[in-house]
């Protein structure tokens, strides 16, 4: 039976500019000012070094479990760097480096993972949503924010992050669908780090790419080398500009790798092979970017060494100050704050109960 083929927008492109050997494609090389290049590098370095330090703190019992970002620095920094401060940033829970770029203090990162609600505080100047843990649930919030921006005739954009696992969740699909229908100024950044705890990407979905899922909802999807900060930046910039100009949503799939554990309570040796990890070590985002910067005369060995020292100091100071601050925190009565605008009577009673109990214990 003769069939007519329906013309679908079913093309996904792959973008790579700076390869794993530090060689750049001159045709595609973006025109990023030197200052910004160095800022990107510093942010990636800070993300990595802080991540390493946090892991140490966790092993020493000075912090609780968290989700390391090691290996994914380019994927998140390259994307988030294309936002204006007035744009909105919606993280999942593996975007620590991007959070720092967006103004979150190291202190708050540590406080949150050390179990202090104060770590979740967000300065009123920052258009950042808090860390979201239920996988994929935050994507809808970004779309709602975007709709509101359009409604208020603002030229803002919302950028939301999520992983490969999230693309199996219903909320991901509902969010992309709403974004397509309402043409919201949303940039969807998928950090495909190839593992959702122990489930490899190939078992998460039968789709050849994750980016193609956007096409089903009427939005363009592009796949990029997620360890190539230039490619991520370029793709994200295009997506942000499209959104800002009223051209609707875009999905960017960043191919990267979760070099470390899912969270510190995980043991990857149980489900994946060391060879694979080694293979991805050869594709490291920082090493290739440093080569690129060196070739451009922007980063000498001495400068790199000085930067490492500077970052080490910054982290040390932040850790010291945070642990000092922790001593002042922890008043149990504070847990009654911020549930509602005003405490309703039954909660006032419960707070009073705890207050009396604490007074008794204090005697």
């Amino acid at each position, binding site marked *: 039976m003769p069939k007519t083929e329906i013309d679908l927008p079913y093309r996904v492109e792959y973008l790579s500019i700076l390869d794993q050997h530090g060689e750049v494609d001159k045709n595609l090389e973006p025109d990023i000012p030197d200052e910004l290049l160095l800022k990107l590098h510093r942010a990636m370095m800070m993300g990595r070094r802080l991540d390493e330090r946090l892991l140490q703190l966790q092993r020493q019992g000075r912090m609780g479990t968290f989700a390391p970002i090691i290996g994914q620095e380019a994927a998140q920094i390259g994307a988030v760097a294309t936002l204006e401060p007035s744009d*909105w940033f919606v993280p999942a829970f593996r975007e620590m480096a991007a959070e720092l770029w967006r103004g979150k203090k190291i202190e708050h990162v540590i406080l949150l993972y050390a179990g202090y*609600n*104060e770590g*979740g*505080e*967000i*300065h*009123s100047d920052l258009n950042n*949503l*808090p860390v*979201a843990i*239920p996988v994929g*649930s*935050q*994507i*809808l*919030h*970004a*779309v*709602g*924010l*975007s*709709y*509101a*921006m359009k*409604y*208020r005739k603002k030229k803002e954009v919302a950028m939301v992050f999520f992983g490969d696992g999230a693309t199996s969740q*219903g*909320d991901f699909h*509902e*969010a992309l*669908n*709403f974004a397509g*229908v*309402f043409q919201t100024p949303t940039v969807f950044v998928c950090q495909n780090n190839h593992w959702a705890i122990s489930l490899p990407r190939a078992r998460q979905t039968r789709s050849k790419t994750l980016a193609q899922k956007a096409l089903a909802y009427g939005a363009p999807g592009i796949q990029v080398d997620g360890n190539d900060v230039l490619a991520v930046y370029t793709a994200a910039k295009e997506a942000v500009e499209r959104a800002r100009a009223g051209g609707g949503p875009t999905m960017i799939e960043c191919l990267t790798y979760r070099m470390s554990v899912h969270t510190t309570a995980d043991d990857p040796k149980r489900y994946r092979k060391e060879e694979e990890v080694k293979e991805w070590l050869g594709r490291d985002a920082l090493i290739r970017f440093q080569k690129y910067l060196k070739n451009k005369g922007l980063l000498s060995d001495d400068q790199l060494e000085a930067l490492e020292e500077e970052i080490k100091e910054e982290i040390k100071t932040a850790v010291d100050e945070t642990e000092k601050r922790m001593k002042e925190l922890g008043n149990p009565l504070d847990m009654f*704050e*911020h*549930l*509602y*605008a005003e405490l*309703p*009577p*039954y*909660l006032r009673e419960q707070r009073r109960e705890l207050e009396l109990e604490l007074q008794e214990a204090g005697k």
Partner: protein
Amino acid sequence: MAKMTMVQAINLALHQEMEKDDSVVVLGEDVGWDGGVFRVTDGLIEKFGEQRVIDTPLAESGIVGFSIGMALYGLKPVCEIQFSGFSYFAFHQLESHAARLRWRSGGRFHVPMVMRAPYGGGVRALEHHSESREAVYAHTPGLKIVIPSGPRNARALLLSAIRDPDPVIFFEPKAVYRAFREEVPEEEETLPLGKSQIVLEGKDVTLISYGAMLHETLEAASNLQKEDGVEAEVIDLLTISPLDDTLFTESARKTGRVVVVHEAPRSFGPGAEVVSRLVEKSFLYLEAPIRRVTGFDLIIPLFQREKVYLPSARRIMHAVRQTLDF
């Protein structure tokens, strides 16, 4: 003052509030050009346009998550879930985010949204269209749950719900939607959330109810007056959470006898919380055990058996008589 049904009263509240405050946005399935399957949002899209009255795709979690995002930006979304029985798709978004974002962000964000849904039985509907699960929502810290009983209080409570800075679940008893008309003032009128009302004063027994069952309770009270000369005090809770226990614990201290009435299943229902508060605050004044007249701990049956499932005036009267005889 005009006499209107609950549907018309809620419609009035939406029209007036959207006129007054352009941050109010209405969204849901079929709420726009169809005016809502119960016509509650009738006329809004013609007046306020498609940007403010949004016909969404068929996705309850999407509707609520999307509303959360809008609310975080500073809008006041009033989303509709077509029947409360379909709200569970969205329960995760409510529990994990709407209820928590103020707390999670240390007050930086809050979620001033309203989720409206027709709820409850008594209209000969299909499965899933007669649910009463307010207890599940009430057990979720960070949410507020409001259930009006008539046109006037529905309009007044909805205005307060829309203006509340925190997420409010507004369950509308569909059995009351067009059951009767009541005078509702044209000028704006509000009722505070978290406050019950004494609807009928009495000295012999306290009857506590809400939603459609308030009317069965009032009928029972009227019959008891005629048949037994019993003067029941009837309290309409209006807000399930935060629960106002001052009125009913005070009433219990006066009458010494209490019967709680709701159509939701008995075990772990809102009545259980009412009884607990009474025991905590009015124990020494109680002359009899507190009775609950409720739906059975079952899925509400399809409509051939619906009437016998739901609390009736007769069933309430029986419980009251037993309480008085104790």
